[in-house]
């Protein structure tokens, strides 16, 4: 395994990583002494995180060295597919919820990442495309999951209101539009809120990573600004498209709200 480090950047050695396990032992010891019943989960989570990160590090190392742009984009496609499956679970009961989520995440990611690459705002190297793509997919995943959940819940809870609107001759889209808007507001508020407080309450990941890598803060914020703006665009696009597809699936050919039998997800 390579141990290449950017000159001037201080990173822990493998020995340092091994020593940091002592901190896990400290946490486990505290949990044990306080009889929290969390000693085992804490140790398992720590071991799992270590194994996962080593595995991801190996995969990324291979991708960065050998994949090229197309390989990196292929990896982003895999992330989109996984994200669609995860977000789609929140819409249980909505027909084709996973398809809607996957299409939404794909559209949000594709358009945003595509724009960044075509306009040469970010480099086309896999070491840039994969992490940036990951951030976009994660943001889009969270927004589409929330949008699907709210669309489904609104359709269940507001059935009498939706049917009353249908009975006045409104189309399915017109009848559902207030509930669609509420779902989109819920889906987009976290992204908007985190944009509002960026740098004040939280030091965001991209900026923190660059600062740790030795980049000066004024350069790091340029990256972070791009990241925040792309996340806003990706979440808005993904949530909107997913909610629209879900709404389409909730009404049948006679513009009736279909029965929803799915159970809630937590």
């Amino acid at each position: 395994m390579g141990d290449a480090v950017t000159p001037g950047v201080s990173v822990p050695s493998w020995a340092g990583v091994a020593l940091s396990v002592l901190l896990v032992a400290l946490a486990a010891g505290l949990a044990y002494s306080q009889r929290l019943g969390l000693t085992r989960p804490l140790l398992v989570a720590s071991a799992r995180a270590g194994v996962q990160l080593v595995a991801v590090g190996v995969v990324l190392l291979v991708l960065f060295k050998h994949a090229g742009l197309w390989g990196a984009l292929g990896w982003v496609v895999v992330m989109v597919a996984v994200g669609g499956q995860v977000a789609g679970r929140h819409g249980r009961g909505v027909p084709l919820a996973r398809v809607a989520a996957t299409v939404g995440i794909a559209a949000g990611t594709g358009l945003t990442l595509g724009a960044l690459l075509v306009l040469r705002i970010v480099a086309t190297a896999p070491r840039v495309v994969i992490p940036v793509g990951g951030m976009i997919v994660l943001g889009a995943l969270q927004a589409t999951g929330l949008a699907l959940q709210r669309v489904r819940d609104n359709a269940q809870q507001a059935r009498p209101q939706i049917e009353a609107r249908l009975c006045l001759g409104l189309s399915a889209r017109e009848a559902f539009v207030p509930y669609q808007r509420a779902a989109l507001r819920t889906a987009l508020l976290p992204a908007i809120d985190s944009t509002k407080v960026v740098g004040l309450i939280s030091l965001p990941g991209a900026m923190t990573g660059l600062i740790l890598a030795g980049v000066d803060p004024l350069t790091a914020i340029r990256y972070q600004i791009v990241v925040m703006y792309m996340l806003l665009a990706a979440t808005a696009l993904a949530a909107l498209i997913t909610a629209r597809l879900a709404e389409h699936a909730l009404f049948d050919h006679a513009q009736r709200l279909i029965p929803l039998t799915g159970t809630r997800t937590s």
Partner: protein
Amino acid sequence: MAARGFTVEAVTVRRGGAALLDSITVDIAAEACTAVVGPSGAGKSTLLRVLNRLEEPVTGRVCWQGTPLPDMDAPALRRRIGLVAQQPVLLAERVLDELWVGQPRLSGQAAEELLDRVGLAETFAGRRSAELSGGQAQRVCLARALAVEPDVLLLDEPTTGLDAVNASVVEDVIRGFVSAGGTVVVASHDATLVARVAHQVVLLDGGRLVTVGLPTDIASWGMR
């Protein structure tokens, strides 16, 4: 001869394996008031929902003036065939906004006339919907359906929760609507309402059609 209205042919509606309507065949005249009566669970509300396509039969078909309902654009059909549900469902902040949901171009004067028609003073236009009593909300829902100017009104238990005075207002609305050439189908337990406004009565029980008769027959069916 009665004008051609709804033709319901061998309509069956199922939900969760249970037949809510079981092979119902009945003609419902246009420009008249037809009452659908029967015990709870008889299928009265389901029949009304079938008539404006909120419910789809698994077998059989429904025609309005000779045209099968599936051949008509659903929103256009529901503008022509309005349904007022048993439980009043309010949709907007103020009463005037309620009337605008289905008819955004309704003038203030037309809105006041509609409110007057359902026995509500014109001052109700500015009232908050959340402050209405159940009976007032029921009548606002009726006015909201009338605002769309439908050809047919499907009314599900329209006098539930109304006192005698306001129930007679609803009767007047039904009579006025029919005398203006409209068609009303009303599902009701209210024998007084049925006796006063219906031209034809359809008796359902357990999702099946028992008989079709006149309002004068209902006493012999055990309905009071």
